[in-house]
């Protein structure tokens, strides 16, 4: 028993040494305000160790990664501060991106408008009223060039919240990078590309599950060979939680979806270690502080076990659950919106103590509108205060060994496993989604929550208790209503000036490729994009071939 512990400990020390040679620690010495030195990691003394510690908790950077995926976590580098942003035109969003980078943000995260996310051009009748509202409108490569102008794609990593048309936007990103002289082997970032949670909770699906899963595995395969540093999927619990689920349901349904992608990729002929290291996750952080921190630790442990034992992955990178966190949008109140700053700070802290790789902190005014520049800055400052002032990043996984947190981590794991067994009995996540199982579970929890709030069994400060007479909220961000027309004109213009015969030829090649189920569509989509075919045109070709999903 102590033998195993000592082995783990020695291995950890070696790992730390190696890591520090490559990326030195942030400071030469970590001390607190009383000048007490802070160790990189605290762990039990040899004579206090039991089997459980080595088995379930272990050391950071080691299986099952309960304490984190890297040996010394934020001692070397803070999490990536990645604020999700985008609204209106590509030009306006480009300005916001540059502002955030100047303010010390370390990665980009693009929000697209709904027409882009559902594969309609801005001049499509379906797009009316939605152009540029919840994100930036992208029709053709021209818009993407504007969006990323002046941003060095060899230095900045970009996360794109795009699902059904993920292949199209990824190809646009690759094309812009190439124009900047950055080869696709070098670009880094993430596409969300998680269609199952769209059917469950978020709603931006286009095609039925089967062809959607094909597009996803096409991306896995293409990127494994051509874009090796890009995260090909961000398997998301965030929206499941926002739709009303509990923390346990969030992890359970996300990991069930994750297994479905792994199954699909293996079925398409890929080896698990070929794609699994590029799988990423995306979780929510809500208000129940210790429950949230425990949730992240449990998720890591379950996934590691799953990948190692069930899928027999050999590469350690395949075992590591890397995740982005966003604070909980549905926990924000429209009443007394400044209170939301405090909620966000607590939620962000739970994500940091849970070992997140990157973080988005919501803005105080998001229950009312998209954030203003000032609100977005306060949200970023919240992360910077946690990083630079609170000291919580100076030692790894400081909550480990807490009776409460360890017990809660075990409990979350146990309950998640029960759900995973149930979903497996149903035939897996795709089947469960098609039967509406997860949707029903989530809806039931959402309704229970609403009833608890109305009966004041749950107190929401400023909303159902501690209320004040509200003043009208001024100073909200408004998306220019003229933008839609400008964008419509722009896409019409690009159709005039591009070489139409090129576009027709590339679209027709894509159509033929789509008809052959063993053809990888990525190279064809890349050619379409480079000919300035639009998101809508490309998605319409695939709609004709694959059909449309019309909901449950």
């Amino acid at each position, binding site marked *: 028993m102590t033998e195993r512990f000592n082995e783990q400990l020695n291995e950890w020390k070696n790992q730390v040494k190696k890591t520090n040679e490559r990326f030195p620690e942030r400071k030469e010495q970590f001390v607190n305000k009383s000048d007490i030195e802070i160790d990189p990691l605290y762990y039990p003394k040899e004579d206090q160790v039991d089997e459980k510690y080595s088995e379930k908790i272990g050391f950071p950077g080691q299986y099952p990664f309960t304490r984190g995926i890297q040996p010394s976590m934020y001692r070397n580098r803070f999490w990536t501060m990645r604020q999700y942003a985008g609204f209106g035109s590509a030009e306006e969003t480009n300005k916001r991106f540059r502002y955030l980078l100047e303010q010390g943000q370390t990665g980009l995260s693009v929000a697209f408008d709904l027409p882009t996310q*559902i594969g309609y051009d801005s001049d499509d009748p*379906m797009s009316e009223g939605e152009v540029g509202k919840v994100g930036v409108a992208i029709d053709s490569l021209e818009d993407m060039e504007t969006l990323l102008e002046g941003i060095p794609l060899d230095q900045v990593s970009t996360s794109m919240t795009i699902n059904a048309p993920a292949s199209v936007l990824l190809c646009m990103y690759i094309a812009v990078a190439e124009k900047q002289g950055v080869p696709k082997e070098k670009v880094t970032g993430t596409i969300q590309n998680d269609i199952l949670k769209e059917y469950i909770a978020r709603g931006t699906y286009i095609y039925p599950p089967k062809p959607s899963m094909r597009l996803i595995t096409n991306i896995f395969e293409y990127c494994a060979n051509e874009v090796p540093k890009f995260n090909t999927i961000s398997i998301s619990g965030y929206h499941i939680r926002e739709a009303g689920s509990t923390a346990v349901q969030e992890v359970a349904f996300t990991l069930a979806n994750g297994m479905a992608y792994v199954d699909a990729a293996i079925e398409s002929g890929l080896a698990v270690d070929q794609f699994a290291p590029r799988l990423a996750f995306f979780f929510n952080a809500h208000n129940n502080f210790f429950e949230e921190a425990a949730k992240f630790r449990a998720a890591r442990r379950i996934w590691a076990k799953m990948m190692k034992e069930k899928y027999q992955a050999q590469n350690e990178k395949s075992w590591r659950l890397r995740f982005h966190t966003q604070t909980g949008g549905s926990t924000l109140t429209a009443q007394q919106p400044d209170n939301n700053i405090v909620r966000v700070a607590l939620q962000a802290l739970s994500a940091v103590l849970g070992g997140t790789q990157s973080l988005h902190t919501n803005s105080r005014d998001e229950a009312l509108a998209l954030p203003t520049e000032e609100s977005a800055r306060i949200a970023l400052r919240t992360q910077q205060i946690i990083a630079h002032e609170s000291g919580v990043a100076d030692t790894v996984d400081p909550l480990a060994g807490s009776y409460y947190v360890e017990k809660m981590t075990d409990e979350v794991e146990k309950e998640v496993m029960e759900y995973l067994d149930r979903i497996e009995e149903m035939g897996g996540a795709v089947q469960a989604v098609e039967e509406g199982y997860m949707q029903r579970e989530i809806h039931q929890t959402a309704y229970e929550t609403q009833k608890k709030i109305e009966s004041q069994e749950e107190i929401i400060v400023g909303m159902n208790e501690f209320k004040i007479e509200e003043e009208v909220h001024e100073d909200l961000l408004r998306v220019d*209503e003229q933008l839609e027309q400008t964008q419509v004109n722009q896409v019409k213009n690009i159709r005039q000036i591009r070489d139409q015969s090129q576009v027709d030829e590339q679209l027709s090649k894509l159509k033929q490729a789509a008809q052959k189920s063993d053809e990888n569509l990525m190279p064809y989509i890349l050619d379409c994009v480079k000919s300035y075919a639009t998101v809508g045109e490309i998605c319409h070709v695939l709609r004709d071939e694959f059909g449309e999903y019309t909901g449950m």
Partner: protein
Amino acid sequence: MERKIRVLIAKPGLDGHDRGALVIAQALRDHGMEVIYTGLRQSPAQIAQAAIQEDVDVVGLSSLSGGHKTLFPKVVEALKEKGAEDIPVIGGGVIPDEDIDYLLEQGLQKIFTPGTPTTETVDFIKSCVSGDSNE
């Protein structure tokens, strides 16, 4: 027997956030109403058509994407075109205070913003219906 109040809950436009719509639908059912939920991505014309076909007493619209200023009035317009302007239309979602007056001018009966107890919506629908019906 007294006829149950019939309500159409609809999601106009491309917005996929349906937690609020589903919770409201459930709450109205718990208060004895019959609720028809359209599902996502409905055009104003489709919503008006469904309202008439289902012979509803009230239409409830939900949008969290910022498209309400364009889409909500279009539903009122579509109902009018089909001669069904007597069906009251209410709305909810992430809607800034300053848009509410505009929407009321455009013929919406009431806008409910985040934090509204479902009982308030129930009471409003009941008062809407009892005001113009002796069934």
